[in-house]
């Protein structure tokens, strides 16, 4: 697991060079309509994300449905072509690589999908699905591929004999293990886990999560863990990034985020975590309104129409930058009022409980 003694919140810490540097990443989707399918609008799924992922750490990415988490993850492993911005992977700019140039990167970055029922080809035997990556990346010997598939299946807690079965013969949890085996067989450096447990029963979730954690330390993986469940993220992450409407609202180490959130959106999210104790007093912040449409986002800070502390003339005009707050350089938030962005750094943490 990542070095928790040094919660490398910012690029400045620069102990060793980070594995992934995302700069101003934008991904837009055209919306077609009308009789001739002309482009009538643009969905800003990811609008200017900056994110650095250190080697060996797990970054949790949380946010509600439709905030762009999945798009960010898919763009990071280049299943989607970024509209603008750059992605640096291990010192190499992979933003606009195409075809065969992308192949070495494909080997080093893998993705685990949310739905284990659709992410495996129903017509391929599990062993074939797992070994296809090896085949595509030049492991010619059939015996070696078979050997590695067997090892991988055992590593994720399945049996070698399962290789000849089809996906529909497995349960959801087993399938997600197969998904893990498939993603990890190429020994990638980066794994994007896109809500890997949200389609599973709660009883199976922990199994898969613990397996992922074990494998991470065993294989020295760097993980971007996408989830909407804050409890799950707290369990696996070193650092947590909170996303809202295509932008990162706040990013810091797990402990700091849960104890001392800076961004009002993070506060609202944390207050919504259910506590299994009916007598404990709750201080719930219920957000008003709906998430604005990413086709037509509000001006200024995207959160300003729902923000309890928004200031007219500031928050609905300027887009806040991701800046450190009052508790150190590795706790970043995109809020005019809670960071050193403006002179109004008066509203302090006392309000943030």
């Amino acid at each position, binding site marked *: 697991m990542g070095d928790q003694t040094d919660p490398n919140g910012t690029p400045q810490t620069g102990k060793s060079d980070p594995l992934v540097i995302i700069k101003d990443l934008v991904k837009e989707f055209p919306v077609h309509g009308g009789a001739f399918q002309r482009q009538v609008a643009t969905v800003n799924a990811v609008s200017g994300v900056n994110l650095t992922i250190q080697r060996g750490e797990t970054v949790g990415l949380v946010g509600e449905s439709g905030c762009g988490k999945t798009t960010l993850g898919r763009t990071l492993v280049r299943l989607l072509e970024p509209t603008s911005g750059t992605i640096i992977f291990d010192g190499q700019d992979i933003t606009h690589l195409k075809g065969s140039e992308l192949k070495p990167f494909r080997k080093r970055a893998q993705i685990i999908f*949310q739905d284990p029922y659709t*992410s495996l080809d129903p017509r391929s035997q599990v062993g074939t699905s797992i070994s296809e990556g090896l085949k595509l990346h030049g492991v010619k010997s059939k015996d070696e591929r078979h050997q590695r598939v067997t090892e991988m299946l055992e590593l994720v807690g399945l049996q070698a004999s399962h290789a000849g079965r*089809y996906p529909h013969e497995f349960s959801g949890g087993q399938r997600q293990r197969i998904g893990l085996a498939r993603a990890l067989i190429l020994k990638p450096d980066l794994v994007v886990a896109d809500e890997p447990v949200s389609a599973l029963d709660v009883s199976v979730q922990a199994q898969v999560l613990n397996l992922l954690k074990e494998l991470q330390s065993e294989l020295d993986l760097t993980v971007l863990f996408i989830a909407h469940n804050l409890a799950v993220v707290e369990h696996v992450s070193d650092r947590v990034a909170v996303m809202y409407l295509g932008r990162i609202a706040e990013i810091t180490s797990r402990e700091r985020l849960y104890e001392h959130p800076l961004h009002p959106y993070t506060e609202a999210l944390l207050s919504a975590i259910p506590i299994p104790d009916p007598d404990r007093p709750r201080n719930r912040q219920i957000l008003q309104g709906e998430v604005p449409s990413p086709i037509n986002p509000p001006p200024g800070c995207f959160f300003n129409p729902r923000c309890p502390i928004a200031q007219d003339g500031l928050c609905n005009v300027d887009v806040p930058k991701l800046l450190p707050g009052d508790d150190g350089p590795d706790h970043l938030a995109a809020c005019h009022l809670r960071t050193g962005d403006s002179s109004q750094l008066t509203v302090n943490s006392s309000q943030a409980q």
Partner: protein
Amino acid sequence: MLSFITRRTLLAIPVLLGIMIVVFLLMRAIPGDPCTSMLGERATPEACVEFNEANGLNDPVFVQLGIYMKNVLTFNLGESVRFSRPVTQLLIERLPLTTELAMSALFIAVVGGVPLGILAARKHNTAVDSGTMALANIGVSMPVFWLGLMLAYLFAVVLKDTPFALPPGGRLSAGVFPVPYYEAWGWNLTEGTFWARFNEYIANHYIFDTFITAQWAIFWDLIRHMILPAIALATIPLAIIARITRSSLLEAMNKDYIRTARSKGAKESRVVTRHALRNSLLPVVTIIGLQMGLLLGGAVLTETVFKLAGVGTALFDAIIGRDYAVVQGFTVVIAAGYVIVNLLVDISYGYLDPRIRVK
């Protein structure tokens, strides 16, 4: 697998029996009778009594049905009143042409329809997609006889004396007869035996016969005659197959396992052929099986337009002439063919989808 085939074959028996009974009763329910259509002006009541007596048509309908069923079970399909020949002999002469026509049309429909569907799906929401699907809609709505006439006009009249000219009708050019393979290979067949008739039936598939005996001049002549009717007959199934392929492939392309394949680093062509297409073939194969019914129905019109002496024209003439035995015999054979094709389709499901195989 064997038990599956046996079970399905046994299940086909009630289907075929049902068809036999329905066709038998329908033919007798429609107005008109064999006597008047056969004897015409000379069909006096006395002559008709004699005619009906000679052909066993005076018995009660259910007695006739019983006799007919008994005969069919011994592979005796009765005798044509109009031609005074056994129905099986007519089938031996007529069925091969229709089989070849239907197979050629099916070949064109699959070879044309599947790639068109793939193309439209790969170029989803572009001019290529809309264009292909507009063409497919036109194809589905095209009446076979009209298209046949237009094709014949274009290739036999407008393009006459060009290298693209094609004959407007008939199975072969005048005066050309293929040599059956059993004669070419000097087989000694005793006239009238089952084996001789079976070989005659097989050899009447002229395209197949001339191919295996390398009578290339006649083979190409057959192909040239087959092109237009096959295209006319293939249009509707081709358009349907293209549309099904497109929608099925589009659905598959949206699945996570396609993203999985891409993230493994697979080339787009591999992603489409190995992952998406294989998973989207099931509905396509179902449709191809169902098209067989359409092809046999369309064959009646196509054979009429292109003056081909196949099952379609024979069936049409037999219905007009109230030639009961021919209508019944041909219908049962066509139905059996349809049942067999759909059995093959069901067997292929097991190959195409492992989830079906397990059972």
